């Protein structure tokens, strides 16, 4: 399983490196999202600063849709997924590999996006360790849930529209918890014992476990 996970992650990252989709397209898209949010919500000046964490995670969530969509599309093009089945690649390995590749891309994206948020919305950040840890686990959770649901939604020819419908509700707890925990981190109440961080850890572990267990059955069905 671990071998297969490495093989898959390596392949997916290589394809991303070739096509540079995350860098050239998803990242600018995330920025555009930040800007249009500000457009649509420009009420009182303080508002944006207050909701900055929420908008950040919304932008990440929307970007993640495209990211996982692509991760799964790689296998549905020319039915490569059937190929993997015939080659006997372990389904847990496929899942972990894809999650790793998506995680790496999203985490880098978040790093750049955070700089943007700080400049654009100007929140003050206090608790860096909390910010980083929350981001880490939130991203694991989003990637794991994303890859799993994207696979669920594949098969349907109208996948691009089905995926967000499935994915957004199940990741909204992650969105909420990450937002809350960043709000704590941005205020002076930051501490690593933050209950929202604990929730994020639970979520990421649960989705990883769910994926490792059920991904095989989703592929087989």
């Amino acid at each position: 399983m671990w071998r297969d996970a490495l093989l898959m992650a390596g392949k997916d990252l290589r394809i991303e490196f070739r096509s540079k989709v995350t860098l050239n397209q998803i990242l600018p898209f995330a920025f555009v999202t930040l800007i249009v949010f500000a457009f649509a919500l420009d009420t009182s000046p303080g508002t944006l600063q207050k909701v900055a964490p929420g908008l950040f995670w919304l932008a990440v969530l929307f970007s993640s849709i495209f990211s996982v969509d692509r991760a799964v599309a790689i296998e549905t093009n020319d039915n490569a997924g059937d190929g993997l089945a015939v080659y006997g690649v372990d389904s847990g390995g496929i899942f972990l590999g894809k999650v790793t590749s998506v995680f790496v891309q999203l985490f880098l994206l978040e790093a750049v996006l955070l700089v943007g948020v700080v400049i654009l919305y100007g929140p003050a950040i206090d608790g860096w360790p909390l910010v980083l840890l929350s981001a880490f686990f939130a991203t694991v959770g989003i990637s794991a849930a994303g890859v799993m649901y994207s696979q669920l939604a594949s098969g349907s020819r109208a996948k691009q529209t089905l995926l967000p419908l499935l994915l957004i509700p199940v990741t909204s707890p992650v969105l909420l918890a990450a937002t809350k925990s960043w709000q704590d981190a941005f205020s002076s109440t930051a501490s690593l014992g933050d209950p929202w961080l604990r929730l994020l850890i639970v979520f990421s572990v649960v989705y990883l476990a769910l994926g490792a267990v059920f991904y095989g059955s989703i592929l087989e069905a």
Partner: protein
Amino acid sequence: MQSLVSFKKVIVVSGNFPILTGLDFETGPGEVVLVKGRNGAGKTSFLRAVAGLLRITKGSALVLGVDLISNPADARHRVGLLGHETFLYEDLTAKENVTFVLKATRSNISKVDAALSAVGLTGRLSDLRVSSMSAGQRKKVALAALLAREPELWLLDEPHAALDSWTREVLDTAINSSVANGATVLLVSHEPLHGSLMPTRVVELAGGKVITDTRDIKPVVAEKVPL
């Protein structure tokens, strides 16, 4: 004779349509079975069922000693499928694709170059991304991966389509030599076969089941049209 594939009254229903309708088929090692039949007879579905990619609704199915009903996934990695789809990654090159397949099947990756040059993908072509290849070149990449893997059971769904006559010879020779080494081949083809590849048995499908099964084939080598 040990049985490699054994389908008994296999029924496959998909989307409320009975694709296979009680198919009986049995084969042992070393056979080259030509599967014929009209469009829509169920040939592709039959091969996909043997590969464990199609869920069997009813009946009993054994492939390479594995029961497909209880473990549809367990025989797959010993099976090689070359079909209408080539299972390739568009953004990777020919060489990268074949290497990936060999790593995924835990085969020896030293055979990559030999396999690629066996099908004539050398030089520029071995480092060309699949997305810029012609129909036949893509098929050749898939074929190279299959040759390098040396599966025990070959499932070939119209493998000659899109290949030029030179590559057809390569394929036929490869099939013959692997059969000589004990592999079994199920071959779907609409073309009148000719040349070096001669099936040991012809099975005809219609309406999702086997309707004829002929074993004694006169080795008449067809005359090629001199074009």
